[in-house]
């Protein structure tokens, strides 16, 4: 860049700001139209799914014709099927227990890695980070064999516990707590507070924003998780919603019922999306959490 802001003549400098003040339909309406088209295309599979889910069973629906009337029959049918309710319950347990334990253990470890001195701290931390390079699918077989030998297949602990070792969570908590000033923790300790009390009354409240972000992500990761629940949940007793949905086949059931099941399964994600969208968007931009 050879031109600097200071060297620009004032008359020309006014140009961009005048352009910015132009009403949208004169300047960039073709781009806006393209963006609107892409946005509508992106949500259209969801819209189609909901229309079919709300169409009377066995009648022609989109794309052949618009349904003459909408009904909640499919949704109530799905919600009264015992399999579907069990899967939903299992998914809720899988997601919520994981959120609580991961938030607790990763904030404890993050605090220690950021603010405590103990032998092997760096080696341990970098080993944790190195495990990020090993994709879970590469260790799927040995993890399954291990859980199987501990009689964990088709149990809740077998489903949940192996997914709690989350290096992304530990890394995120450590980076966040590293940015907090030492004085906050030292002052409390001089006052004679125990380590656990410092963690509980100072670390946890101070890390609330990052814990909330992490909690949302852990919830989505587990609610949407598939491969591990597929191999470890071998009966309806521990099968999660994603695994349960794949056992439903169009050959054996009405399309409207299948789409209703899919629609109900996505409701928690949509809730998270509508309530916390700004939050999710900002944290992806800032932390790169995926």
């Amino acid at each position, binding site marked *: 860049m050879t031109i600097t802001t200071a060297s620009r003549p004032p008359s020309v400098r006014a140009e961009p700001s005048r352009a910015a003040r132009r009403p949208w339909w004169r300047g960039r309406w073709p781009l806006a139209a393209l963006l609107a088209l892409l946005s509508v295309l992106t949500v259209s599979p969801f819209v189609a799914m909901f229309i079919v889910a709300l169409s009377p069973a066995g009648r022609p629906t989109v794309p052949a014709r618009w349904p003459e009337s909408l009904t909640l029959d499919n949704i109530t049918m799905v919600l009264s099927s015992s399999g579907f309710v069990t899967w939903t319950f299992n998914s809720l347990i899988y997601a919520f227990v994981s959120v609580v334990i991961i938030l607790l253990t990763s904030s404890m470890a993050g605090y220690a890695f950021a603010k405590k001195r103990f032998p092997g701290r760096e080696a341990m931390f970098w080993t944790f980070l190195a*495990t990020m390079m090993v994709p879970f699918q590469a260790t799927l077989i040995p993890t399954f064999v291990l859980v199987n030998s501990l009689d964990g297949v088709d149990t809740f602990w077998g489903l949940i516990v192996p997914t709690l*070792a989350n290096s992304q969570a530990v890394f995120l908590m450590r980076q966040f707590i590293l940015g907090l000033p030492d004085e906050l923790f030292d002052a409390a300790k001089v006052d004679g507070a125990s380590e656990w009390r410092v963690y509980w009354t100072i670390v946890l409240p101070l890390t609330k924003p990052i814990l909330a972000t992490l909690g949302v992500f852990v919830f989505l990761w587990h609610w949407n998780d598939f491969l591990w629940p597929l*191999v470890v949940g071998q009966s309806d007793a521990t099968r999660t919603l994603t695994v349960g949905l794949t056992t439903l086949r169009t050959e054996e059931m009405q399309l409207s019922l299948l789409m209703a099941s899919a629609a109900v399964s996505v409701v928690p994600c949509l809730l998270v999306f509508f309530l916390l969208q700004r939050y999710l968007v900002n944290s992806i931009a800032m932390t790169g959490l995926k």
Partner: protein
Amino acid sequence: MRHRLRDPVTGLLFVLPVLVLFLIFRIFPSLGAAGMSLTNWNIGGEWDIIGVDNYARLLDDVNFWLSLRVTLVYSVVYVPLTMLVALGTALLLNQVVFMRGLFRGMLFLPYVTSFVLAGIVWRWIYEYNGLINGLLAKVDLGPVAFLEESGVVLPALAVVSVWKGFGYSMLILLAGLKAIPSSYLEAATVDGANAWQRFRRITLPLLKPTIFFVLVIETISAFQTFDTVYVMTGGGPARATYTLIYGIYDHGFRSFDFGYAATWGMVLFAVVLVVSLIQRRFLDRGNT
């Protein structure tokens, strides 16, 4: 200070839960994967060390080379497509002010759902009497056998994953675009640079590190494709969608040939490691 003396013990105690979880469920299985690939471990838990026999079998296995090719072809379709869509939408969101928040939300929406849901909905979209063929029939076209024809099925699967996942890369790229000082672009405008020149000479070079980050993330995720394959094609037709992870699942949980399945896992590990090392090399070069 007295409390400093307590640090070694309390520090370790605070790390302990994570440490135990990692040792048992991450580090032990990582070493175990390498170990198991040298055995003929089966469903009964019986095993003998057979050396590198599994690796020799891998090299002779037509299905392994096929699955490597499937995964590679899939990546070659998926990665550029998702980069194009993510960069395109990010550039549009950066330009358009009109209802930007709404459009960003709509484009990002599929990201919060699961690949299983995407697979179920798109299986219907691609069916003979599904959404796309229904629409094509209205203009007397089709039907297209999206999931039954080996030449079409991989791009069809890639489109599903792009739809489900591009919102993430779009947000990362959008953050990168916002970090480019607007004064640079204004100055170029004053110099008479047109939109394409501004993009080519200013935006693109400054966005390079972000693009590279997204490229690595998306390449790794392309190599890990499984959910949509399981839901939509089951590896078919005629193994046209038999990806690397599908091979691990198939050998492990259909044939219960654990030792050999672990060997497939080692290949996945090697691929992801190479991609990560290339990334590190490029980043190091960028810093010096």
